[in-house]
């Protein structure tokens, strides 16, 4: 029932032109934050304009993870880009995202098919 402490975050990246899809799994907390931040910053610096972050396999999210997401939103929006978040419809990750108010700036979507086409 209870997963192991600090299950390492796993990151898988798919790049198609200006769009990057980043699939995260595991626990997105203070320990995982630098690794995720580095990967997302690399995509932004590499010219990605749309980043879809798939959080559906993330089992834990707190304000450390949220801070990384919001920080990347700020960086990318300054360059005219957008971030979309894929999340499960319920569960603690969804609750934390809803409570934080991040959906005001980053849409919470159920699947990649809901990401607006350019």
């Amino acid at each position, binding site marked *: *029932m*209870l*997963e*192991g*402490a*600090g*299950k390492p975050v796993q990151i898988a990246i798919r790049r198609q032109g200006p769009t990057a899809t980043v699939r995260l799994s595991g*626990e997105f*907390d*203070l*320990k995982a*934050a630098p690794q995720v*931040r580095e990967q997302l910053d690399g995509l932004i610096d590499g010219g990605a304009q749309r980043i879809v972050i798939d959080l559906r396999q993330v089992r*834990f999210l*707190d*304000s*450390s993870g*949220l*801070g*990384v997401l*919001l*920080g990347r939103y700020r960086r990318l929006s300054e360059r005219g880009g957008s971030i979309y978040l894929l999340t499960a419809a319920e*569960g*603690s990750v969804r*609750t*934390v995202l809803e*409570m*934080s108010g991040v959906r005001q700036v980053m849409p919470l979507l159920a699947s990649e098919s809901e990401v607006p086409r350019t």
Partner: protein
Amino acid sequence: MTQYFELACPSRPENVGLCRVTVATFAANLGFTLPEIEEIKVAVSEAVSNVVVHAYPGAEGLIGLRCEESADGLVISVHDKGVGIEDVAKARQASFSTDPERMGLGFVFMESFSDEFRVESQPGKGTRIEMRKRREAPAEGA
């Protein structure tokens, strides 16, 4: 004797998960439901992350964690002997953070995911956070 545990560990990011899962296991043994445990995990993660990020600037110190069964649930205490918080009321405001990469939501989540929440802090001496979580009453006939 009341059921409890105490844990002390260095203020390192990898110990946030250790504290979170240890408390979650303790709560599971006390009969908390899975949704309640998920809330407890977020609250503990925020309290311990605050120690790692803010309590010992540029250094490592101790995270103190105590978890105790109460008549109606659980009392969680997270404490440190770090720099303390100058203005607790300001720190508890949503979106206040001394770190631009953090959202200032730590205290909001601790408060939202516990039934009672208290912060005691003295600059230069440290901080103690106490969170109480009540167990959901079992459904009738269960």
